[in-house]
């Protein structure tokens, strides 16, 4: 029990942690939705966390569901109700969750599709083009100036000095002389120049050769822009490698900043657009896992809720069962609803308890004055025994009547007493055919008109109380004999049969006659005390029989045949625990 409690506690802790994690994931997803880069960063860990939660939850829910199904298969008390409730609650949770999931996906897709809006893209392209055209004029100015400087450099020997002077005079930030192998031969830069030497590529050199100039707009790491111009310089001698002048011109910082801003926006847009699909799938996957987690939680919750709801009903049924000493099989077992079973069981328990109580009290209260009445009647008879004639006759008849009726009353009281008292069974191994034969022998002598027959195997042993089993046979044979009054060719058949229900061996004892049978009203109340169709019957015979059968963990049923009626008793061959038999009660159901 302690282990189960610890397990339950651990399970609850796990579940609460999982709920916490799922809630955390949802929040993370919500915040990350504002910042796809953030989602990008934390997606892996978020997903692993959710998948783990999902697997653990799935195992817990599967185990709970398995237990519930096992209980249902074993027809355990409340299992059907629990299963129904769990299914109903789960169903209620699944439908809105699925609907919400698809709507959320739809809205999310629409939201993400805004990222790649055609108008936005066109706007950004136009902004880029506008920025570039604003710089075109500057590029042309740079080209003009660089070409002029290149012309001035022709034939000059101290090129380093000249370059420095030219940088001072021009708007260029840096001037570099390179050969065709892209080796820097000389350079001159403005004192405040931020430009680090950027070497042209071979392709640019080729282009400069072909077109006599090469211009480009370059970005620098600090976000500013530079105009780079490359022009050939006429060689100083014919043996020399071709030379090139590369000049850098800075772009107005304000313009540079705006161009950088446009470029950054364009790049961000491009990145988002590029990652649109994977981000979308990530959202869907995360959402799907969270929804599945929520569903599992709902299923687990519904199973737990159903368990808790059914528990008090279960204890009520147990209480009801404890009110009667022996557990009984329901007479009206055609209803499969647990609440009906519970109510029947409770009512039956109350009725039996009430009857036992009434019988006990009546026996006590009636028995007390019987002896003084009887003694007084005998004393009157004795006192007036000397009387003569009519007086004597009157006294004798009256006192005899009193004594006889007191005897009848005493018998009735004893019968009530027997019904009320339930002595413990003294079980032993009994050969049923033997006691049946003896009972038949006893009655057949006095009722020779009735044809008694029996059908059974020679030896069928059961564990039971011999005295009480004989009482069953006596009561039932007596009832059959009474039912056969004024019947042509009366017959009584006693039969036994070995049967097996859910691997448990039972002995089925049936007593069949061709008598008047039971009325419809009697069939439903046959086992209740004080119910009888016989003019002088006390209505306790079948009630006592049922008590004894119940004590033996058995089942009794009556039914009308086309001719007469049958009483069928099923008693386990071996003693079993009450619960074991109780679990199979629904399997034994006679249509009576």
């Amino acid at each position, binding site marked *: 029990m302690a282990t189960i409690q610890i397990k339950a506690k651990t399970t609850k802790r796990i579940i609460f942690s999982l709920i916490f994690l799922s809630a955390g994931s949802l929040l993370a997803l919500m915040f990350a939705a504002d910042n796809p*880069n953030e989602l*990008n*960063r934390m*997606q*892996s860990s978020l*997903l692993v966390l959710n998948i783990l939660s999902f697997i653990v939850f799935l195992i817990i829910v599967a185990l709970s569901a398995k237990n519930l199904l096992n209980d249902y298969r074993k027809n355990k008390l409340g299992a059907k109700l629990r299963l129904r409730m769990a299914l109903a609650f789960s169903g209620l949770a699944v439908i809105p969750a699925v609907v919400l999931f*698809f709507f959320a*996906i*739809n809205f999310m*897709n629409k939201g993400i599709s805004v990222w790649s809006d055609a108008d936005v893209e066109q706007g950004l392209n136009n902004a*880029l083009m506008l*920025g*570039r055209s604003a710089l075109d004029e500057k590029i042309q100015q740079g080209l003009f100036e660089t070409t002029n400087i290149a012309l001035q450099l022709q034939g000059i020997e101290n090129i380093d000095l000249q370059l420095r002077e030219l940088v001072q005079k021009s708007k260029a930030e840096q001037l570099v002389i390179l050969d065709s192998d892209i080796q820097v031969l000389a350079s001159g830069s403005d004192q405040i120049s931020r430009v*680090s030497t*950027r*070497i042209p*590529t*071979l*392709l*640019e050199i080729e282009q400069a050769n072909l077109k006599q100039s090469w211009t*480009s*707009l*370059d*970005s*620098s*790491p600090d976000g500013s*822009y530079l105009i*780079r111009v490359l022009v050939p310089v006429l060689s100083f001698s014919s043996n020399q490698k071709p030379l090139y002048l590369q000049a850098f011109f800075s772009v107005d910082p304000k313009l540079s900043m705006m*161009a*950088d801003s*446009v*470029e950054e926006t*364009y*790049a*961000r*847009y*491009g*990145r988002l*657009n*590029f*990652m649109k*699909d*994977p*981000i*979308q*799938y*990530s959202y*869907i*996957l995360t959402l*799907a896992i969270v929804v599945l987690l929520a569903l599992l939680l709902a299923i687990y919750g519904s199973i737990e809720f159903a368990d808790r709801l059914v528990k008090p009903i279960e204890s009520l049924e147990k209480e009801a069962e404890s009110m009667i000493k022996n557990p009984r099989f329901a007479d009206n077992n055609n209803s499969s609803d647990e609440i009906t079973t519970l109510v029947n069981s409770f009512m039956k328990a109350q009725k039996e308890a009430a009857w036992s109580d009434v019988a006990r009290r009546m026996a006590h209260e009636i028995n007390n004055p019987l002896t003084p009445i009887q003694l007084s009647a005998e004393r009157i008879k004795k006192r007036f025994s000397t009387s003569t004639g009519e007086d004597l006759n009157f006294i004798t008849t009256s006192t005899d009547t009193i004594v006889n009726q007191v005897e009848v009353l005493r018998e009735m009281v004893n019968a009530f007493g027997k019904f009320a008292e339930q002595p413990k069974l003294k079980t032993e191994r009994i050969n049923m055919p033997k006691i049946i034969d003896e009972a038949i022998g006893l009655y057949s002598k006095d009722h020779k008109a009735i044809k008694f027959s029996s059908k059974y195997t020679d030896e069928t042993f059961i564990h039971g109380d011999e005295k009480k089993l004989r009482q069953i046979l006596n009561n039932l044979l007596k009832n059959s004999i009474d039912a056969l009054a004024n019947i042509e060719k009366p017959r009584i058949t006693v039969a036994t049969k070995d049967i097996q229900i859910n691997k448990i061996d039972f002995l089925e004892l049936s007593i069949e006659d061709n008598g008047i049978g039971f009325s419809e009203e009697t069939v439903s109340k046959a086992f209740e005390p004080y119910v009888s169709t016989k003019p002088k019957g006390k209505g306790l015979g079948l009630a006592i029989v049922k008590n004894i059968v119940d004590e033996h963990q058995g089942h009794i049923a009556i039914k009308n045949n086309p001719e007469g009626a049958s009483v069928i008793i099923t008693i386990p061959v071996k003693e079993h625990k009450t619960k074991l038999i109780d679990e199979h009660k629904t399997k034994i159901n006679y249509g009576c």
Partner: protein
Amino acid sequence: MLSFRKFFHVSIAFFALTSVIAIKAEGSGSSYIDNGVYYSDIEIPINFEKEQIKALESGIIFNLELNLKIVDIRNWRLDRDIGELTQVYAIEFNAFTRRYTVSNKNTGRQASMAMIREVSEYLSAIKKLPLVDDSLLDLDADYTVILDSRLRAQGMSPWMKTISFWRESLDSDLEQIQWQLFR
């Protein structure tokens, strides 16, 4: 609305491993000493895949990571690592200038190119990469330079790369190149 195809992709993504294209390249390397320092010239033909170019033009930055290891290969004993050098080049596209910029993260030196072919050519032939000081080496030893190169898209988590499994991988590993330090 969510199509079945997308759903299928998402579910498969669970089981998809991070795929990395291994580019088969017949690269080569050589080393030489200059003023007491060993330098290397490396040739690693790099070709950008279509998807990588698309990613570059979409603003994704790529890093070319060159990991050079100098190992003393010894018979019957465990090899000894002498030193390791990692050279990283960042490649990005500027939509405003419509040019690619290659920045050497170690030196800060930048190169600007108009075409991706130029970028490939520029990165395929790396000249005069300083490796190790001569004084640290034993002339009798047999040193091997091992170069592992890889191209990685930046700003995309492994998860994002995994879930983009339906398109060509953005990451690629280049074939390992080895050469003797002393010729």
